[in-house]
Each structure stands twice: as C-alpha cells, then as structure tokens.
C-alpha cells in the first residue's frame, strides 16, 4: 500500500509541478480538516502528497461514494488512499456524513474535504456546503486549515483524462475556528474567504 501511494503521489507531483507553501501554518500531526477549492480530479491526491509522510499516514480524503465505488480502478484507488466515502444520495438522520466523518477519524486522523461539493468549472468559487459548519460544531477542537490550489484546473480540467504538465501551487493558510454562537452563513462565508484570500499571497 505504501509503495502504490508513494508512486501515485510522486506522479501527481511531477505532472502538476506543484510547489507547496505553508503561510502562517506548519505541517503538524494534530487533528485537522484541510478544506480546499475543488477544480480537478487531482486535488485530493495533490494535497495529500503535499503533506509530509508522517502527516500523510494520518490524513484521509473525503470523497463521493457513488463516484469512487464505480469500477475496479476507482475502488482500488479509494482503498489505497484510505478514502472516507460519503453517500451523497442517501443521507439518514443518524448516518449523516458529518457523523460518519467524526466516527471515522476518532482521535488520530485528519481529513481533506472540498466544501464546494463537486468539481467547479467556473473561475469563481462556489458557495460552501454546510458540512464544515456542523463538523466544527460537533468537534470544535479540530483545526480547520484552508488550502488554495492554484492552476490545477488547467493541468487536468473536469471531463478530461489526459493531463497537461503546467506548474501548479498548493498554499496552506492559517487555521480558522468556529467562533462561539457564530451563525452558519457567517462562518461559511468566512471559511470561503479564507481560501480565496490565499490566492493573492
């Protein structure tokens, strides 16, 4: 498992020529939720491979079950990266994605999430879905780290399967937390702006 993921991570880094920047934030094995803009299939893989190996082992990408359980290759990849698959169609009360995430990470793992919901083809980021808010409400101790991925939509845009090896950049920003009594809409806007703000650094 280590070898497959290491090779995939290296390939992703070579194809995307990614440089990694940590702005007011350091890699750490504490429990975190990395939330990023979503423009390409490579996003989760690239964030994952941008982390140092010890952090990588503890970090699980969150992905859509309907997509990643289709076909042998996708199932295999999801398994290799220890992905946390979320059923987007059947959301039950006590089986909500947020509950599932909290149960799965326990007290050791971190998550990679894309609060836009699906891959975005517009230059503007979409509004965030509310999962990040509920996650933070139930587990206020989690550090929410905004991540901005630059140029990856040009490397492998939605609907394409052949990459173009342009240079991209992954920027990790300073963590945000849910303030006490902060309204949902306010928090989600703030989180979205934390990601957008990394664009101009």
């Amino acid at each position, binding site marked *: 498992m280590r070898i497959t993921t290491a090779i995939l991570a290296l390939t992703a880094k070579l194809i995307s020529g990614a440089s990694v*920047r940590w702005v007011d934030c350091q890699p750490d094995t504490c429990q975190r939720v990395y939330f990023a803009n979503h423009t390409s299939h490579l996003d989760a893989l690239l964030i994952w491979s941008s982390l140092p190996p010890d952090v990588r082992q503890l970090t699980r990408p969150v992905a859509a079950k309907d997509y990643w359980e289709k076909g042998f290759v996708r199932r295999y990849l999801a398994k290799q990266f220890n992905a946390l698959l979320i059923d987007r169609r059947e959301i039950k009360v006590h089986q909500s994605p947020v509950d599932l995430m909290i149960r799965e990470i326990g007290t050791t793992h971190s998550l990679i999430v894309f609060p836009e919901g699906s891959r975005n083809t517009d230059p503007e980021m979409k509004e965030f879905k509310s999962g990040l808010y509920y996650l933070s409400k139930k587990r206020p101790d989690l550090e929410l780290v905004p991540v901005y991925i630059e140029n990856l939509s040009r490397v492998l845009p939605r609907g394409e399967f*052949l990459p173009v090896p342009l*240079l991209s950049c992954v920027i990790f920003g300073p963590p945000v937390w849910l303030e006490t009594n902060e309204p949902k809409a306010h928090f989600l806007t703030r989180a979205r702006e934390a990601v957008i703000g990394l664009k101009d650094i």
Partner: protein
Amino acid sequence: MPALLPTPEIATCLLANGAVQVLLDRPATILLVAVLVLLLLAWALGNYLEKRPEADVNLALVKSFNRRIQAWLIMYLILGATFLAGSSRIPAVILFFIVSFWALREFITLTPTTFADHRALFWVFFVFTPLQYILVGFGHHDYEWMGFVINPGRIFITWIPIFAFLFIPARIAFAGDHKRYLERTAKIQAGLIICVYALSHAPALLDLKYVGAEAKQWEGGNAGVLFFFIIVVQMSEVFQFVWTQLLGQRVIARAINSNRTWEGFVGGVLTSMVLGTALFWVTPFNPIQAASMALILAITGFAGAMTMSAVKRDRGVEDYGTLVEGHVGVLDRFDSICFAAPVFYHVTKFFFAEAG
C-alpha cells in the same frame, strides 16, 4: 595553436551509418575542464562572501550570483559527464529536451489559456516537443525506409514552424471556443517556437559536418562548437551586467527592463568579441571569424533577454519561476540561449558546414 595542440579524440561517437564522429577533442576537453575549475573557484568565492556578510558586499547580488554559478556548474557537469561517459550525443539532446520542456511549462503556466486549449496543449507537450528532440537526436544521417531516403535532420527544421504551427490553431478551432482565439493561439505558438524549436538548434550543432581551413573537413570535436556557443552567450550576459554596473547611464527601455543600458550592451558585445576570439581554437573558425560569431551571439542573446523581459512585464511577473517561491525559472536562465541558438546554427551551417 593547432600545432601545439594536436587533436586526438577524447570521446567519439559511432553513428548508425558506421561513420565515427569526434565529439570531444583535446581543445574542447581542456576548455571544459578550465570552465569547470573557474566555476568551482567562483562558487567557492561566492559561498565565502555569502557566509561573511559585511557592509562592503551587496548580499542580494552575491546570492543571485551564487545561484547562477550553481546552475551553470550543474549544466557543465552534466554536459561534460555525458560526453565523456556516454560517448554519444543522445544524453546532451535529452538534457536540452528537459530544459525545453521545463521552459515551455513555465511559459504556458504564465499564459492565460482556456479549457478549450487543453487538447492542443497536450499535443504540444507530449507530441511536438518530444518529436522535435527525437528528430534532432537522430538527425545525423539518412535512413532508408520503404524505398524512401529520410533525413530526420532535415525534417527538424520544418517540423514545428510548419506542421505544429498550423496544427495548433486548427485543433483549438475544433474545440469551439472563439473568445480571444487569435491571442490564445499566438501565445501557444510563440511558446513552442521560442522554448522548443529555437532551443533545439543548440544540440543540433553537434550534427553539422564542419569545414575547417582550406575547405577541408574539420577534424575537431563538435562539442567544442557547442561549448563556444554556450560560453560566449552566457558570458555576454555577465559582461553586459558588469558594464552596466560600471558605466550604465542610458537605459534602453525602462518599461521593459531598467537594468539594461546602452553602455552595458556595447561593452558586453565588445568584451564578448574578445572572449570569442580567445576561444577560436575549439572551433573551426579562425580568430576573425570567431570574433564575428561572438558578435552575432552577443547581439542575439541580448535581444532574447530583452524580448523575454517584455513577455514577463506583459504577464506582470518578475521571473518565470515565480510560482516556485524564491526561484528564478529555467526560462530566465535560457532566454538568451533560446534566441541565439537558431541564428548561430544557421550562420555556422551556411559558412562553415557541408551542405546536407
């Protein structure tokens, strides 16, 4: 000089048609070793200056000097090692392929392309660029194929400026996005021509059959011509910089690059001619011809640096490596070489090489 330095072959390369090509002769090896020693000394000096920062040295200048020296040292080490160990031109061609690929990557990254250009870009990166270098790599003689006689060395001249040049706009048209169509197409074409086509003429210098004095075949090593080319272009950049520091008054175009002055340009060109003359013994040129070649190299190299500065200003960046924090890009290092290579190749081919 030639009497003092006979030209035994240090490294030769056996071509596919059975002929033997001299790559490194003794003068070229001496030059390579001398350059490596000088670079190592400069590197040691630079590191020493960086370690003891005192008021009399400009630390930013020393750092940029050190990075430049390091990049050159790596390049000459790789070139020297490939010629000596491999006795083949292919590693040198691969080295330039990697440089081209990376420079193109930097160029296109800073160029706004849209989703509709994706497939065309894939062709550019994975078909046109590798094929150009494959043609250069196998360009030294004719191949027979199904009764045809094919010379890759002749195709490499037309491959990108004709076939790729026309293919790109057609492929983008098929993708069906007309917004800023001409602009997007032109930018991709410019990147491909400058970063790949122009630069590929540098390793192609290893393929020419040079004619020396009295119209006889030149017996020296072809790597000498490549070294002459690279050293003169790179040093002309350094001379130009030094003369600007010493005498620089009249800036050529402030909006493009405020560090390039007429004094630096003239001083750089003249000093490069002196250097070129001093290096004539690794080439098939006599001293006066070597001086003229150095003149051409210094002018075209300078033009290349100016042009690429203009592109950078247009895109609003300082260096092509901007995405990689604190790094100067590959294209920043090779801009002058990209422009000088095709001009030098064709002038050399016209005056100093056998036809074909």
